[in-house]
C-alpha cells in the first residue's frame, strides 16, 4: 500500500513534465504512456486523451496543463510517475514556469523530422535555469522524413550531452516509450521535502468545472494536505475548506489520506472563480500556516488589448455574461466595458498574447454562440505630457490630445529559429519592424537562432504571418517581455466626412503613420458603399491630414420601371433594403455597413489567425 496517495514514500515518486512544440507529438506520447502503464485500457482509449477542450483537440495544442499519476515498476519496485502536461505556447510562459517548478525533471521532446522550435528552446532554457534534469527525446522516428542523427546532434549541442544519449521514440507506434519511462525513474531525482513542516503546496493550475467549481492542481512541497482541512492561499490571504482532495489517474480518484511530500494532485474547495485560486500561489494549512510562501508568484499581466463588440448590439448582455463565465476559468483574462461611437457597446479586453486573444474570441463565438467584431490588437503605452501628466493607454482612441512629451512602449526579446537560407529574409523583416539585432548562433550547420529586441506592438501586427510566409513556414518564434522603450509614436485617426471613427484609430511609429493611413483609407473606400453625397476619407495625425481618399457620391439609385407586375416585387425589395439599413452604423451622416468594419479590422488581426496554427 505504500504507493497510495498520502502514504507514498517520496523516494519512489518522480515528477516530470514534457517540453515540446505544438505539433511535436506530446499528446500522442502521453496517450501511449497512459496505455503502457495500464491506467487506461485499450477500449477506453481515445486520441489526445488528456486534452479536454474542443479547441485543444482540434488545434492539437494544450492550453491548460494537466497532471496524471502513473504507476510504473522498475526492478520490482513500484514507482509513482506524475506527468505534468505543460502549455505549449509563448502566451502561457508563466504557467509553463509554474508547471516546471512542480517537477524535478523534464522530457525535452523534439520532432525528429523538424528539429527544435523557438518556443521549445525558450522553455528548455527555463527548465535548465531551474536545474531540472533534462531527458532529451526525439519523437516520430517512424516518419520517413525523420533525421534522428542530425537533430540528436542539435539537441546534444544545446543541452551539453552526447548525441547517443538522446532517446528515440515513436508516440504513434509506442517504440521506445517503455525505455523512456524506465529512464525517467532512473534519471529524475525523487522529490525532497519536510514531511513534518507546515504544509506548502504550489498551485500550478486552476480550472473551473461547471459541476464542481474550481479544481486546483497542486504539488505538495512540504508537509501534508488533508480533506476537510482549512487551507490558506498565501498571496490572497483567503481561506477555504478542502471539500475533496485527490489524484488524476487519468480520471479523478479521491485520496482519503490526502497528499504528502512530493505528491501531485487536485483539491476542490467550492470556490467558483479561478481568481481565488491563482496559478503560482502557495497553499498552506489554515491551522498551522507556513512562515514563507514558495517563491515566484506573479500576477498575470495582460500584454495585448483589443475591443470586442457584438455584431448585433442586442447581444451585449450575453457578451458580458460570457466574459464573466470565461473569467471563472481564466485568471489572466481582464476586461472592462467600453463604448465606441462606431461599434456601440463592448469591452476592452486584455490578453497574455495573441494566441490567448484568439482562443478567448473563439470560445466566445463557439461556446456562447456570439458573433463578434474585434478591433486591431494593441499594446499598453505610457504617455507623458509636457506638463508632466502621465497616461496609460490601452485603447488608441484614448491617446491623449495636446502636448505629448514622450511615449513609451513595451519591448520584447524575440528569438527566431530558422534554416540558415532565410537569415536575410528574417533580418529584413525584423529591421522593418524596428528590431535591433542582439545576436545570432548556429544550432547546427544549417539552423540558426537569431535574437532581436523589438517593440511588442510590431509583433502583434501580423508579424507571425509575415515570418511564416517569408520562410515557407520554417521559422519559429518566441518572445519574452523586456521592459519599455521611448519611441516616436503617433496616433493616426481615420475620419469619415470629418468625423473620427474611433475603431480605426491606431498608434504607430511616425515613419509608418503615412502607410497605415493610406492603406486604411484605400481599404475603406472599397468597403463603404457610395452615399448620396461625396464622402472624404482622411487619415490624420492630430489636425494634420496625411492621406485622403474620396467615395464618390452615388448618382443613380432608382429602378427604371415599375409597372403592374413589378409593384409587389419592388415593395418587397424596398423592405429588404430597409432591413439592411438597420444594420448600418451611422458615422455622422455616413451609413457604414457592419461588414465594412469587420472587413477593415479583420485583415489586421490576421496575425492572430495565423498564430494559432
Amino acid at each position: 500500500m505504500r504507493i497510495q496517495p498520502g502514504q507514498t514514500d517520496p523516494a519512489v515518486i518522480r515528477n516530470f513534465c514534457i517540453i515540446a512544440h505544438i505539433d511535436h507529438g506530446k499528446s500522442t506520447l502521453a496517450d501511449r504512456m497512459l496505455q503502457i502503464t495500464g491506467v487506461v485500457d485499450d477500449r477506453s482509449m481515445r486520441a489526445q486523451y488528456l486534452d479536454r477542450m474542443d479547441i485543444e483537440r482540434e488545434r492539437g495544442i494544450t492550453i491548460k496543463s494537466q497532471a496524471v499519476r502513473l504507476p510504473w515498476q522498475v526492478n520490482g519496485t513500484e514507482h509513482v510517475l506524475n506527468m505534468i502536461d505543460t502549455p505549449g505556447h509563448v502566451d502561457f510562459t508563466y504557467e509553463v514556469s509554474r508547471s516546471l517548478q512542480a517537477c524535478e525533471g523534464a522530457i525535452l521532446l523534439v520532432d525528429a523530422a523538424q528539429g527544435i522550435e523557438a518556443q521549445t528552446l525558450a522553455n528548455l532554457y527555463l527548465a535548465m535555469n531551474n536545474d531540472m534534469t533534462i531527458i532529451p527525446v526525439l519523437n516520430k522516428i517512424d516518419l520517413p522524413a525523420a533525421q534522428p542523427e542530425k537533430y540528436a546532434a542539435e539537441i546534444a549541442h544545446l543541452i551539453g550531452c552526447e548525441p547517443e544519449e538522446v532517446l528515440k521514440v515513436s508516440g504513434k507506434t509506442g517504440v521506445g516509450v517503455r525505455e523512456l519511462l524506465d529512464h525517467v525513474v532512473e534519471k529524475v531525482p525523487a522529490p525532497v521535502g519536510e514531511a513534518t513542516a507546515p504544509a506548502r503546496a504550489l498551485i500550478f493550475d486552476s480550472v473551473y468545472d461547471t459541476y464542481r467549481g474550481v479544481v486546483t492542481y497542486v504539488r505538495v512541497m512540504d508537509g501534508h494536505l488533508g480533506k476537510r482541512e482549512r487551507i490558506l492561499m498565501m498571496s490572497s490571504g483567503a481561506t477555504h475548506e478542502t471539500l475533496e482532495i485527490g489524484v488524476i489517474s487519468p480520471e479523478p480518484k479521491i485520496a482519503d489520506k490526502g497528499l504528502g511530500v512530493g505528491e501531485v494532485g487536485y483539491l476542490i474547495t467550492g470556490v467558483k472563480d479561478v481568481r481565488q485560486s491563482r496559478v503560482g500561489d502557495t497553499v498552506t494549512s489554515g491551522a498551522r500556516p507556513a512562515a514563507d510562501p514558495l517563491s515566484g508568484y506573479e500576477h498575470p499581466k495582460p500584454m495585448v488589448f483589443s475591443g470586442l463588440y457584438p455584431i448585433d448590439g442586442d447581444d451585449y448582455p450575453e457578451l458580458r455574461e460570457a466574459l464573466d463565465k470565461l473569467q471563472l476559468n481564466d485568471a489572466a483574462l481582464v476586461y472592462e466595458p467600453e463604448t465606441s461611437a462606431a461599434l456601440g457597446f463592448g469591452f476592452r479586453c486584455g490578453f497574455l498574447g495573441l494566441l490567448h486573444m484568439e482562443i478567448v474570441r473563439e470560445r466566445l463565438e463557439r461556446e456562447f454562440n456570439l458573433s463578434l467584431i474585434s478591433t486591431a490588437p494593441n499594446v499598453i503605452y505610457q504617455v507623458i505630457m509636457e506638463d508632466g501628466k502621465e497616461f496609460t493607454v490601452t485603447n488608441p482612441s484614448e491617446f491623449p490630445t495636446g502636448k505629448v512629451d514622450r511615449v513609451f512602449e513595451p519591448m520584447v526579446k524575440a528569438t527566431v529559429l530558422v534554416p540558415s537560407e532565410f537569415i536575410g529574409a528574417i533580418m529584413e523583416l525584423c529591421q522593418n519592424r524596428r528590431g535591433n539585432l542582439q545576436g545570432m548562433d548556429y544550432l547546427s550547420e544549417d539552423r540558426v537562432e537569431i535574437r532581436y529586441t523589438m517593440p511588442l506592438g510590431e509583433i502583434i501586427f501580423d508579424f507571425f504571418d509575415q515570418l511564416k510566409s517569408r520562410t515557407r513556414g520554417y521559422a519559429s518564434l518566441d518572445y519574452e517581455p523586456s521592459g519599455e522603450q521611448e519611441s516616436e509614436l503617433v496616433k493616426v485617426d481615420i475620419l469619415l466626412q470629418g468625423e473620427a471613427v474611433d475603431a480605426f484609430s491606431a498608434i504607430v511609429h511616425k515613419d509608418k503613420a503615412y502607410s497605415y493611413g493610406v492603406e486604411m483609407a484605400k481599404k475603406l473606400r472599397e468597403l463603404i458603399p457610395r452615399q448620396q453625397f461625396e464622402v472624404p476619407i482622411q487619415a490624420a495625425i492630430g489636425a494634420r491630414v496625411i492621406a485622403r481618399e474620396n467615395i464618390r457620391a452615388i448618382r443613380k439609385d432608382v429602378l427604371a420601371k415599375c409597372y403592374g407586375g413589378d409593384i409587389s416585387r419592388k415593395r418587397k425589395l424596398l423592405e429588404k433594403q430597409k432591413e439592411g439599413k438597420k444594420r448600418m452604423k451611422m458615422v455622422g451622416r455616413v451609413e457604414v455597413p457592419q461588414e465594412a468594419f469587420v472587413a477593415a479590422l479583420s485583415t489586421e488581426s490576421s496575425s492572430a489567425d495565423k498564430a494559432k496554427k
Partner: protein
Amino acid sequence: MISRTGHRVRGGRLGHVPSTLPDGDPVPPSGDLPEGALDGLGERPFGFYVHVPFCVTRCGYCDFNTYTASELGPGASREDYAHTAIREVRRARANLGDVDLPVETVFFGGGTPTLLPAADLVRILAAIGEEFGLAPGAEVSTEANPESVDPAYLEELRGGGFNRVSFGMQSAREHVLRVLERAHTPGRPAHAVAEARAAGFEHVNLDLIYSTPGESDDDWRASLSAAIEAGPDHVSAYSLIVEDGTRLAARIRRGELPMPDDDVAADRYLIADAMLAEAGFEWYEVSNWATSEAARCRHNLLYWTGGDWWGVGPGAHSHVGGTRWWNVKHPAAYAQRLTAGVSPAHAREVLTPGDRAVERLMLELRLSAGFPLGELDRPRVVARALADGLLEVEPFKTGRAVLTLRGRLLADALVRDLT
C-alpha cells in the same frame, strides 16, 4: 435572330409580367376576392391588362413570362389563346359582381401581342367590352415591334377599337440592337410610326433602352434623335437591367460584355431628359415623357395611382381594392385551369394599410404630380431632401414633394429614407 413581330422587352415599359412570381396566400378555386376588396369598386378607375405570352424567339436580355413555340406544351397553342383569355374575361365579371364598371383603359402586352392575328386581339377586346362596357374615350393600347406590323394589321386593330400603339424601338444603332439581340433595322421605327399614324392611331409611343454594353453617349444621342424624328407623342426610356438567368447576364459573367455602369446610366438619363425636353416632351414619370397631358399613358397612370385592374393571361398580375394576385405562370397550366372552370390565380396578397401607404409613396413620388407633403411624416428627411436638391422648391411651397432631375435619379433612396 429573326422576329416577325415584337419581342418582349426587359427594361422596356412592358414588364407587366416578370418571370419570377412572388410568394403569397392561396386563392380559392372560385377566384372570389377576400372580404372588403370589392368595397368602393367602380369609384376608382378600372382597367384591363391582357398578357400575350408568345414570342418567335427570346431576346438575350429578356426574363419575362413568354414562350417560343417549342417551349409550349399541348393545350396552350397560339390558336386557342384568344378563346382561353376570353374565358378569363368572363370569370372576371363573375368575380367582380354586377357593379357598373366601365373600362377606362386596356393594355395588351407580352410576349408579343402582335404575334396573334389582329382579329384575335380585337375579339378579346370585344369580350371585355361585352362584359363591362368601355368608358367613353377609353384608352386601348397594344405593344408591337417596329418590323412586325404592316399597314393592314394596324388598320385592322384601329378598326377594332385600338387607339394607341407602343413600339419597342430600343436603339437606333445596329451594334446596340445586336447586343440586345433585336432584329429590326435602325430605320424601321420611323416607318412604323408613320404607318400607325396613317392607320389613325392617335397615340404612339417608342420604347428606348440605354446603357447597353457597347453603347456610347453619342449612340444614345443618335437613338434619341431618331426617336424624336419619328414623331411619336410619347417616349419611354429605361436603363438596361441585367436579369439573372438571361443570356446577357451569362455573357457579362463570362467577360464577353462589360456590366452596365450606374454612373453611365445616370449620364444617359440626363442626356435623355435634356433632349426630350428640347423636343417638347415633358417628363411625367421617372422613365416616361409625353408631348401633352393627353399623350400620357392613362393605363400606366392607373397602376401608379392605386386604380383597379384585372390582368388576363398566364402570370398576369391584378389589383382590386388592396388585394393583389397573380395567375399561374405557364400557358398550359393557365389554359387547363380555365377549361376546368377554376380560377387561374396562383396566389395573392392582401395589403395591410402599411403596405398600401408604402406602395403609394413608392409609386406616386415617381410622378411629376408628386406626393402631398402633408402626408409625409418624416419632416427632417423631407427638409434634408429639399436642402440636398432632391425636391423642387416651387411645388414644395404649395405642399407637394416633386422630384428634381437629381431627385429622380435617387428616387429609391429617398423612398427608403421616407418610409
